[in-house]
């Protein structure tokens, strides 16, 4: 294990007592508790951490935060492995294992870096221009290009980690726990508001964590101590929820906010089993405070991408927060005063600062003055015009610059790091996601929050307020205002005094000139996507004026970092190339997520059995223990068939169907929708929603009904019983129960509010045991003595109430199988007992449970339709040959008018018929297309399709139902069904195959 040779001996927010071993690219290292992977790598002198996306150029750690474009790592191995994490955000834990992404075979020798040698041949839009023709080959090219440009690998195995989600509400949600966010939280929290304070880092404090310990003070306290006090006070407030390690990633409508909390990521293998790895928070906030800070803007200069070149604020963070030297000889390059803080801190830590190269002609602020006092050379009016070094920067060439051009000879300064700053860009991402409009401020070249349409306020650096005192003041103000708007009168909050050096104005420089011949030295704008200034200008020349097109053409701002460090520079350089003002070009749309969120977190616990609710009948456990194979019908699980040992589906279905035709079959029909309808106008409601007439249905009788949509197409069907003069029980298909109830509610609430009728879903109140077959009456007779079962006393399509198998029951004599059938409805709690009683008593009749598959076969033999299988929303009653159920006398019913439309009356509509295959053993595929003339060349005319198809053991041949153009006019004709690899001749027949007069079910 190597010594942490770049680690300072004292200071910083790491615990040197807690050593953590980790591996990077196969080598062992050591870091401390409090480190990120990036800071630990810097501490170990690891400079080269990755390769760029396109040219595979060596790249080093560039930032200290979520904006990192270079240091992308694959974390972990095997199933839990995760690609493209930013090393700057990965908290170090013992046993961490990471590798660079996007380099092969290794980061030091990357074979694809050949791309870099031929980079002039790979300009912006190269892939579009080269590989888009012929279009058919793009898929092949794409595979090779992706292999070359791939960024990390997703694990092949299922993710073993657990993720959770939760919902939350609050009065004030604060995004960002820096000085502004903390003050806002204190102000809102003291007012008594429900506050959520979220920050993506492991501790609150924001940039204060990266300042030197003897730096700024707040209220006379060291900044970090003030942070600790504020945190402690907030933690003591019952209504304040502190969420560190939590990124506010999405700002949606109506202050709906997405947060991702990394619950145990920082614990590695020590994570407690009971906690999820990450938790997604879905928050509805009355008020939002955005205190998201600012992201340092890089200076764009020639050869600016060598490892060792990093943002000045990041250099300061590594030094002050993590106690590591970003280099031994660190050149500082700036256009503003803030970078002088970095120079001063480095100098104070004993690190050589060869010079501060300042693009401004005459920097006169207090910070440059202090640098001069400290003996740091300031090269005013100078710029870095080039660099050298292969796997790390070794020298910078510095020349006088003025008016955007090199104004004198360059000199060489040896260094092993360059800390540079082009100013700070307010992090307006969330503000913009929330549909806030941005405004551009010329003086600092920044986009700032403008008008908002949601209840939010911005404070601190994200609002363009960089000085600490202003951050605190703004935070206090917006925290109090947000609380007040949420209904909490805010107490006066004294503003703490601050001690902070004042800054002189910056000078906006979008592009540092170079003395190298054009085309020889590249200046990178977007590191992750290898976009150079040349690419930006090329795009402008080629006519890409829209910033959105420009983004996609050059790939600026794409990828995992979404251009956190490159977007604004890219826009500015594009604007200059187009000769337009920056605000006229604008920014690309900011979209969620702010930083990448794992799919696991979006899925949460909605996996496997929790993917969707599973609805079970009261008899479900019996089906399970008797080996039922289930099928999904809506959310219900229904037994499809009950295979015996060694039995396949066809054999089981055959056995079950024969039992129902010859003895007794028993079916769990509990899933059928049941709607209780009460009121004086109940019968009239049925008249209006069904095609047939209901007023004259006698109490105690049942009737089948067909329900149409307003378009006249069949929507649902089922049997409805009249329980009393003003009381009906409607049954619906299993999958349509909720829809039909909503349909009835909609009509009665919006169109017919005067009707005296109420509906309620009674589906789950009842367990429905359907016994079917010639022996069904014998069985029922054994289970009840309450009512006369003789055909005259209890006729088909009627119902009786009484005791069955010891419990109160409603027995309906209705049939879907075509056999003598009784549907016994009992309170759900008794369902299993009654089912079991039937099984026991029915044993001597060979009672056989049958599933939906046999049920479908039995009803198809009878030509009974299934809505949704034999219909598809384009089928009228006439198309089904069911004109008989459409009342000609009723003044109106839903869908009536559509039945007289020209299209519903025309000939040539697809209509229901039966099909017999010429070979009785051949079973057609459901969905098979029907043609009249199989020898036609494609595209041939398809005249219909098979809707239901089975092998009927009763008829000992295959049967099918089909919707065929003018089907009933084709009786006896031979048509052809398309099957995989062949056509099958079929004969058109009536759609009722068995007992056409219904003698069995009426018997």
């Amino acid at each position, binding site marked *: 294990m190597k010594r942490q040779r770049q680690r300072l001996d004292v200071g910083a927010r790491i615990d040197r007592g807690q050593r953590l071993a980790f591996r990077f690219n196969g080598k062992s290292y050591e870091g401390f508790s409090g480190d990120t992977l990036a800071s630990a790598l810097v501490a170990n002198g690891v400079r080269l951490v990755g390769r760029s996306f396109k040219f595979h150029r060596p790249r080093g750690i560039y930032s200290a935060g979520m904006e990192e474009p270079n240091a992308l790592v694959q974390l972990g191995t095997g199933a839990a492995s995760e690609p493209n994490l930013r090393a700057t955000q990965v908290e170090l834990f013992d046993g961490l294992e990471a590798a660079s992404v996007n380099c092969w075979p290794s980061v030091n020798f990357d074979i694809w870096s050949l791309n870099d040698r031929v980079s002039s041949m790979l300009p912006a839009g190269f892939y579009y221009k080269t590989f888009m023709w012929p279009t058919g080959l793009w898929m092949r090219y794409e595979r090779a290009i992706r292999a070359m440009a791939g960024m990390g690998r997703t694990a092949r195995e299922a993710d073993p980690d657990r993720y959770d989600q939760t919902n*939350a*509400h609050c009065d004030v949600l604060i995004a960002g726990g820096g000085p502004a966010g903390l003050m806002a939280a204190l102000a809102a929290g003291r007012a008594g508001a429900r506050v959520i304070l979220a920050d993506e880092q492991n501790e609150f404090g924001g940039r204060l964590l990266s300042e030197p310990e003897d730096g700024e003070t707040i209220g006379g306290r060291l900044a970090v101590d003030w942070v600790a006090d504020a945190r402690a006070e907030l933690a003591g407030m019952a209504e304040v929820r502190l969420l560190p390690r939590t990124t506010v990633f999405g700002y949606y409508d109506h202050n709906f906010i997405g947060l991702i909390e990394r619950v145990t990521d920082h614990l590695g293998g020590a994570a407690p089993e009971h906690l999820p790895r990450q938790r997604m928070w879905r928050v509805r906030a009355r008020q939002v405070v955005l205190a998201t800070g600012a992201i340092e803007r890089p200076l764009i200069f020639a050869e600016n991408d060598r490892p060792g070149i990093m943002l000045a604020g990041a250099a300061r963070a590594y030094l002050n927060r993590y106690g590591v030297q970003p280099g031994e000889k660190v050149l500082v390059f700036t256009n503003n005063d803030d970078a002088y803080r970095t120079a001063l801190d480095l100098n104070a830590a004993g690190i050589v600062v060869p010079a501060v190269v300042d693009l401004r002609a005459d920097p006169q602020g207090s910070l440059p003055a202090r640098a001069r006092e400290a003996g740091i050379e300031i090269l005013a009016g100078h710029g870095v015009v080039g660099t050298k070094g292969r796997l790390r920067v070794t020298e910078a060439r510095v020349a006088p610059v003025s008016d955007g051009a090199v104004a004198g000879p360059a000199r060489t300064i040896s260094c092993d790091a360059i800390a540079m700053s082009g100013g700070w860009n307010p992090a307006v991402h969330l503000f913009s996601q929330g549909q806030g409009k941005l405004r551009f401020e010329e003086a600092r070249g920044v986009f700032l929050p403008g008008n908002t349409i949601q209840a939010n306020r911005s404070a601190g650096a994200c609002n363009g307020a960089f000085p600490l005192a202003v951050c605190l003041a703004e935070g206090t103000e917006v925290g109090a205002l947000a609380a007040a708007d949420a209904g909490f009168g805010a107490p006066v909050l004294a503003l703490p005094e601050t001690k902070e050096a004042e800054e002189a104005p910056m000078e906006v420089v979008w592009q540092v000139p170079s003395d190298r011949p054009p085309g020889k030295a590249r200046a990178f704008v977007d590191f992750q996507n290898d976009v150079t200034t040349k690419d930006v200008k090329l795009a402008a020349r080629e006519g890409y004026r829209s910033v959105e097109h420009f983004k996609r053409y050059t790939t600026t701002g794409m990828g995992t970092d979404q251009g956190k460090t490159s977007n604004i520079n890219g826009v500015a350089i594009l604007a200059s190339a187009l000769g337009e003002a920056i605000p006229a070009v604008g920014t690309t749309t900011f979209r969620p997520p702010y930083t990448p969120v794992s799919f696991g977190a979006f899925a949460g616990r909605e996996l496997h059995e*929790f993917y969707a609710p599973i609805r*079970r009948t009261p008899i479900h456990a019996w089906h399970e223990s008797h080996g039922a194979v289930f099928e999904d019908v809506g959310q219900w699980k229904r037994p499809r068939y009950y295979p015996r040992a060694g039995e396949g589906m066809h054999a089981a279905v055959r056995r079950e169907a024969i039992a129902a035709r010859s003895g007794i079959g028993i079916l769990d029909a509990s899933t059928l929708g049941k709607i209780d309808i009460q009121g004086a106008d109940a019968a009239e409601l049925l008249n209006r929603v069904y095609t047939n007439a209901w007023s004259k249905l006698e109490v105690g009788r049942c009737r089948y009904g067909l329900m149409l949509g307003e378009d006249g197409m069949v929507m649902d069907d089922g049997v409805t019983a009249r329980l009393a003069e003003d009381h009906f029980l409607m049954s619906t298909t299993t999958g349509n129960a909720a829809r039909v109830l909503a349909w009835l509610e909609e009509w009665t609430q919006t169109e017919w509010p005067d009707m*005296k009728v109420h509906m309620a879903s009674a589906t*789950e109140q009842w367990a429905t045991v359907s016994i079917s077959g010639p022996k069904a009456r014998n069985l029922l007779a054994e289970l009840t003595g309450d009512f006369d079962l003789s055909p005259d006393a209890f006729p088909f399509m009627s119902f009786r109430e009484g005791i069955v198998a010891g419990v*109160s029951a409603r027995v309906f004599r209705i049939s879907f199988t075509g056999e003598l059938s009784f549907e016994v409805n009992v309170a*759900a709690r*008794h369902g299993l007992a009654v089912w079991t009683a039937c099984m026991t008593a029915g044993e001597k009749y060979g009672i056989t449970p049958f599933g939906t598959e046999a049920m479908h076969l039995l009803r198809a033999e009878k030509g009974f339709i299934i809505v949704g299988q034999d219909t598809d929303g384009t089928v009228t009653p006439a198309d089904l040959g069911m004109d008989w159920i459409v009342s000609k006398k009723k003044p109106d019913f839903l869908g009536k008018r559509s039945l007289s439309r020209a299209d519903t009356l025309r000939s040539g509509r697809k209509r229901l018929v039966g099909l017999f295959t010429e070979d009785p053993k051949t079973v057609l595929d459901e969905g098979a297309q029907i043609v009249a003339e199989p020898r036609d060349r494609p595209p041939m005319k398809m005249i219909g399709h098979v809707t239901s198809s089975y092998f009927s053991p009763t008829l000992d041949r295959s049967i099918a139902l089909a919707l065929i153009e003018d089907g009933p006019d084709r009786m006896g004709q031979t048509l052809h069904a398309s099957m995989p690899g062949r056509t099958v001749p079929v004969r058109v027949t009536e759609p009722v195959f068995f007992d056409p007069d219904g003698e069995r079910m009426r018997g």
Partner: protein
Amino acid sequence: MAETIPSQSALAPLGLEARPWPEDAPVRMEEHAHSGKLVLRGDHRDSDFMNAVRGVLGMTPPLVPLGSMMVKGRVVLWLGPDEWLIACPAGAETALYAELRTALNGVHAALVDLTDAQTIIRISGPRARDLIAKGCTLDLHPHTFGAGHVARGTLAHAQITLLQTAGDGEAGSPAFDLYVGRSFAQHLWRWLEDAAREYPGGTDPA
């Protein structure tokens, strides 16, 4: 005669009695099965309807959203402007149904016995709200929701009617009755049990 046949609760197949929750667990759940549930619909502006209901229940049903009322062991839950759920002790629903039917004779109203259509999952403990929040978007904070409040919503994609039965002050921690459709009950229970893994002290899911 009916009672000679065993009654099976919605959650009986899960064998919950075999794994009770510790008394001091951050959340506790139990099934409260078989209590009577009648759904009543009618027009509260119709004095005949209101008089009939008042005569049987001894109270005016709650007329404001989120409201519930408890009298003589019965709880009446506001479900909508013309809809109430009347919960009563197990077995009392048949007599209550008959009594209401008689009283409502000739009045436009609907009454349905849905005792078996739903079961109740009772959730209590200091983390009860956090547990429910994992799958439900209702705001149950004491500022907006308290003992006696009732709301309908979805939890883990199942429709629920949620009644807060105890506030933080009374029992030390809140308690909620979740009315859930019988067919969804096992799904919801298992989902809640899985969600509660985060609060050690609960039982391990089977």
